């Protein structure tokens, strides 16, 4: 800085000195060029010319006076005075006369002055003498003539001669010898001549003497004046002067050329300088404009940086944060100074794995940019999703020197998306998935099950007479009921299952990965059971039953809509067949399935071929564990397929109407077996036979029972019947008559699968039944996490209130047993006490008991 200043000082000093030198040079040249002033030269030349002219005129005047042509001396005086007045002017040479010429000029001037002085004196003398001569020349002839006349003839002849000689002499320049005339004059003076008054010879001779004396003098003076060197000298002076003038003029001209050249150089330089300045100015203007635009751009960019809603991060090549914008701080909660110098890893939430970042960096390095969704952690620990764009800034060498990260907090968007998604896919009232989501879930379930080679069940559930509730109690009550129903439905489903509401009172359940048809039916029953529980609504305890239709993939259809349609159809069939029940669509489907058709055919001959057998599952007294009964369960020993479970062939039997024959066979077979055991001396326990809805609806059950007992001579205590709640409900009018008849025959009746249907105890109270069988789905809940065990306890307590004994089905664990025992359950049936087994095995049990 100091050095620069010193340099600049030096520069200025140099420039100033240069300027002073240039100004001095120009001034000097200008003075030298203009030194020969034309006015001075003109005046001097004028003066010289005047002197010369006056000199010439003076000669003329003298000549005029000499020849008696001029009669006054005023011109002479005037001219002499004029010459004299010019003398000081001529004496002052102009300043520019070269010094070398001055001595020569001065000596010439001195010569001229001397000559002029001499001439002046000569003129003075000439004036004096000429006047006298002129007077004498005028007077002498007159006086001489008069005098000679007066003398008369006796005058001396020499006088005559003398007068003539003087007159002749007086006329012109020296025609006579002066000395001779003077001698004559002397001679005549010696003559005794008389005087005549005023006219005396002395007078005459004075004038003669004057003529003789003055004539040569005047001639000589005139000659000298005429031949005065003044003209020549002034001419020489003029020449000398003009020579000097020309030399000076040439010199001045030379300086003028120099001055012109220097000025032209200056002009050229100034033009060059102006052009240069102009160019610089344009350059500067452009540069300024560019800079202004750049600044504007920068300001704009800075504005973008500071006011953007997106968080921005600028890092160096080592990912050290160089700058962040206000939005960054707002989103992350960090202040700028807290993150500067650190890396963006500060924000790492840990949600993405190492691989994620590795991929991000590889793409960033390869393509120079990366976009993606990333989860980061705020300063307060909150984790939020952001949409992050990272761009690499490369330097001239192509090496990344900065990274710019721009991100948006998308948590809200995510939430919105989720909410919208939820709204789009869920029913607003119950929060259950809607049809769209359901279809999606079913499709997913199909895909999943296809891989696992399993089935998918679609259960269509519709609440019976829901419309009545809506109409009579209002929509609010209806809505509340639906909400509760949804909650209950969810309670009995697995997490992988989907419960959805299609609208109104229609619910659909999708069950993926179903191994057996029975599971679907089981779930359907559970659903119907929980839905059939009483609802406490607006002070009313309402009971609503439902109907369920089940369609299976791949058996009933390939597409989602087809499955739904078929499940709907099955549901309507269930409704037709007495509500509060579930139906497979399978009847139609089985018809189209060759396997099911063959099985139905096989089933038709199964009775004759005696392929059907009875298995017996023990019932024990809860307190003692003593065998007190058994349930007869039909088994089909298929010659090719082996043992076929009733869940598979019972629906076939119902579809084909074989069920009635099979029901008859079952009654007869149980009675025959009891007879066998009685005859063998064993103490048989009552055996329960299941009655189907078809049987109940189409056959005269009391007669059948009476016939069977009659046929085998079996006391009625040895036989019991089990029928489902829904069967009773559907055939309510018939049911009471049948049950009373049976009661009259002292045949015990138990309500099977209690809890899955209407579960209306007050309704049951109308029928003379002796016991309730709690459905295995309730028993399963016991000991399971989150199970609704209180319902079981309530059912037991209520049944006891109605003087009904309670049998728990599906008791498989000791926990279940202990719980049920604690709550007063009367009998147990389940794997814990024995699986369904052949008659032979029961015989040994009976034998052991007795």
């Amino acid at each position, binding site marked *: 800085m100091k050095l620069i200043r010193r340099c600049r000082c030096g520069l200025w000093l140099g420039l100033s000195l240069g300027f002073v030198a240039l100004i001095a040079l120009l001034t000097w040249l200008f003075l030298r060029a203009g030194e020969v002033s034309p006015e001075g*030269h003109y005046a001097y030349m004028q003066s010289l010319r005047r002197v010369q002219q006056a000199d010439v005129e003076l000669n003329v005047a003298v000549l005029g006076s000499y020849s008696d042509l001029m009669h006054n*001396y005023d011109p002479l005086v005037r001219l*002499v005075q004029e010459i004299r007045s010019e003398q000081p002017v001529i004496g002052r040479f102009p300043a520019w006369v070269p010094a070398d010429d001055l001595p020569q000029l001065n000596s010439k001037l001195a010569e001229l002055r001397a000559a002029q002085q001499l001439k002046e004196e000569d003129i003075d003398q000439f004036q004096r003498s000429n006047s006298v001569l002129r007077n004498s020349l005028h007077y002498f002839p007159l006086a001489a003539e008069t005098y000679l006349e007066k003398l008369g003839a006796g005058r001396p002849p020499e006088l005559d001669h003398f007068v003539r000689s003087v007159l002749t002499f007086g006329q012109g320049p020296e025609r006579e010898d002066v000395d001779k005339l003077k001698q004559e004059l002397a001679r005549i003076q010696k003559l005794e001549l008389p005087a005549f008054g005023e006219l005396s010879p002395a007078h005459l001779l004075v004038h003669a003497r004057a003529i003789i004396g003055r004539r040569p003098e005047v001639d000589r003076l005139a000659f000298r004046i005429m031949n005065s060197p003044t003209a020549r000298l002034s001419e020489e002076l003029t020449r000398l002067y003009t020579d000097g003038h020309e030399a000076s003029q040439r010199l001045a001209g030379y300086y003028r050329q120099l001055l012109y050249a220097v000025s032209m150089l200056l002009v050229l330089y100034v033009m060059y300088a102006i052009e240069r300045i102009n160019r610089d100015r344009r350059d500067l203007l452009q540069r300024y404009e560019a800079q202004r635009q750049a600044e504007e751009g920068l300001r704009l960019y800075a504005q973008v940086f500071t006011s953007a809603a997106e968080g921005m991060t600028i890092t160096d090549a080592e990912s050290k944060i160089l700058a962040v914008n206000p939005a960054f701080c707002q989103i992350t909660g960090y202040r700028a100074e807290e993150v500067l110098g650190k890396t963006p890893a500060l924000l790492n939430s840990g949600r993405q794995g190492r691989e994620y970042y590795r991929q991000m960096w590889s793409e960033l390095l390869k393509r120079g940019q990366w976009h993606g969704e990333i989860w980061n952690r705020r300063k307060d620990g909150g984790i939020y999703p952001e949409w992050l764009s990272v761009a690499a800034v490369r330097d001239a060498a192509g090496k990344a020197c900065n990274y710019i990260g721009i991100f948006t907090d998308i948590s809200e968007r995510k939430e919105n998306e989720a909410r919208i998604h939820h709204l789009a896919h869920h029913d607003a009232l119950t929060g259950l998935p809607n049809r769209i989501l359901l279809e999606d879930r079913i499709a997913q379930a199909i895909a999943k099950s296809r891989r696992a080679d399993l089935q998918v069940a679609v259960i269509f559930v519709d609440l019976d007479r829901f419309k009545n509730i809506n109409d009579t109690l209002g929509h609010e009550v209806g809505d509340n009921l639906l909400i509760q129903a949804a909650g209950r439905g969810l309670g009995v489903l697995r997490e992988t299952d989907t419960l959805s509401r299609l609208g109104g009172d229609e619910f659909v359940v999708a069950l993926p990965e179903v191994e057996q048809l029975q599971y679907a039916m089981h779930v359907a029953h559970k659903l119907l059971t929980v839905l059939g529980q009483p609802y406490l609504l607006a002070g009313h305890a309402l009971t609503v039953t439902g109907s369920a239709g089940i369609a299976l993939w791949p058996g009933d259809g390939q597409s989602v809509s087809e499955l739904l349609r078929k499940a709907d159809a099955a549901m309507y069939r269930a409704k037709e067949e007495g509500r509060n029940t579930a139906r497979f669509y399978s009847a139609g489907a089985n018809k189209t399935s060759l396997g099911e058709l063959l099985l139905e055919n096989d089933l038709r001959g199964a009775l004759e071929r005696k392929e059907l057998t009875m298995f017996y599952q023990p019932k024990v007294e809860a307190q003692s564990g003593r065998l007190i009964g058994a349930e007869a369960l039909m088994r089909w020993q298929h010659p090719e397929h082996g043992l076929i479970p009733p869940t598979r062939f019972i629906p076939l039997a119902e579809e084909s109407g074989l069920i009635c024959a099979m029901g008859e066979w079952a009654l007869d077979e149980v009675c025959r077996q009891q007879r066998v055991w009685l005859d063998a001396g064993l103490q048989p326990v009552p055996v329960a036979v299941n009655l189907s809805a078809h049987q109940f609806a189409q056959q005269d059950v009391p007669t059948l029972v009476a016939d069977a007992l009659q046929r085998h001579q079996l006391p009625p205590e040895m036989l019991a019947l089990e029928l489902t709640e829904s069967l009773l409900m559907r055939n309510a009018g018939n049911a009471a008559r049948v049950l009373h008849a049976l009661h009259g025959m002292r045949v015990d009746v138990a309500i099977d699968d209690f809890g899955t249907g209407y579960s209306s105890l007050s309704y049951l109270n109308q029928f003379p039944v002796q016991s309730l069988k709690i459905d295995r789905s309730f028993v399963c809940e016991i000991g399971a996490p989150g199970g609704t065990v209180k319902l079981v306890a309530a059912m037991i307590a209520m049944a006891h209130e109605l003087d009904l004994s309670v049998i728990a089905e599906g008791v498989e664990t000791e926990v279940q047993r202990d719980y049920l025992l604690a709550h007063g359950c009367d009998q147990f049936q389940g794997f814990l006490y024995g699986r369904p087994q052949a008659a032979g095995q029961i015989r040994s049990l009976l034998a052991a008991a007795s």
Partner: protein
Amino acid sequence: MKLSSLHRLLLAVLLLSGLGGVIWYSSPWQVPAELPVQPSSSISLANLDTTRPILPLPVPDLPAERVALGRRLFEDKRLSGDNTVACASCHDYERGGADGRRFALGIGGAVGSINTPTVFNSGLSFVLFWDGRAANLEEQAAGPIHNPIEMGSSWADVLARLGQDGAFVREFTLAYPDGLTAVNLADAIATFERSLVTVNSRFDRYLQGHREVLTGLEIEGYRRFRELGCVSCHQGALIGGNMYQKFGVLGDYFSGRPLNKSDFGRYNVTQREEDRHVFKVPSLRNVALTAPYFHDGSATTLDKAVRIMGRYQLGRELSDQDVEALVAFLGTLNGEWQGVLLK
């Protein structure tokens, strides 16, 4: 755009200056070799009639304020050593511009040795003083001032005295911007004196064609003036005053007279023998008013002076008729000053 027009203006100025330079360089610097000669004096030779012996007086044209200033000085007694004598004391306008005495009367009553010449028409005289020792009126003015028996003063004294008169100095400075100096004082006095031209004499009018102005005798006088040869020396506008001549050129005027230094005339200036008794030929203008005559004031009347002139200068004895006629003629030479005929 503004800058661009400025740039164009600058270029135009540069071009013009370059052009000017070229014109300046190529302009004729040389003064033409042949110069018309201009006469230096106001009276050109062309106006001078050389064939006539006597010419009318020219009318002077002079700066009025300097003339007035010169007159005041001319009449100012502070120019003398004892504040008693002014120029006008001896050069009395009422006495034909002279004093009417034989010799000048200076300060303290001192008497000089030479007759006072008239101041009228002195500006046209070719030299001043009887012996012509002053080439012009400026030189002449210093003479009487420094002469101890005339004004007995000096330029220094005069300047000191006049310098105390503030009003005068202010007025003087109006006419002479460089103020009160000896040169300017002399110039003022000389300028005034040059204005003392006695124009419009009867003879001048006669010369201009008014023949009836003169009487027969006067015309006869003029004829004899020429015939006798007076006109040989007394010629020109001043009728004299333009040459020197020896007093006693055809007879010894000084023989038998006591000589003093003034009688040597021009010899006192040149110390040349031929200038002994040589005097300036005096002008005959207003001669009738300036008695006594000659340098020594010896001729008390014009008659006597005319006769002496005839005897010593013309070498003849003039008749009474001659003298009468000549005196009559000389009387016609009185001119007017400030429109008034001198008496």
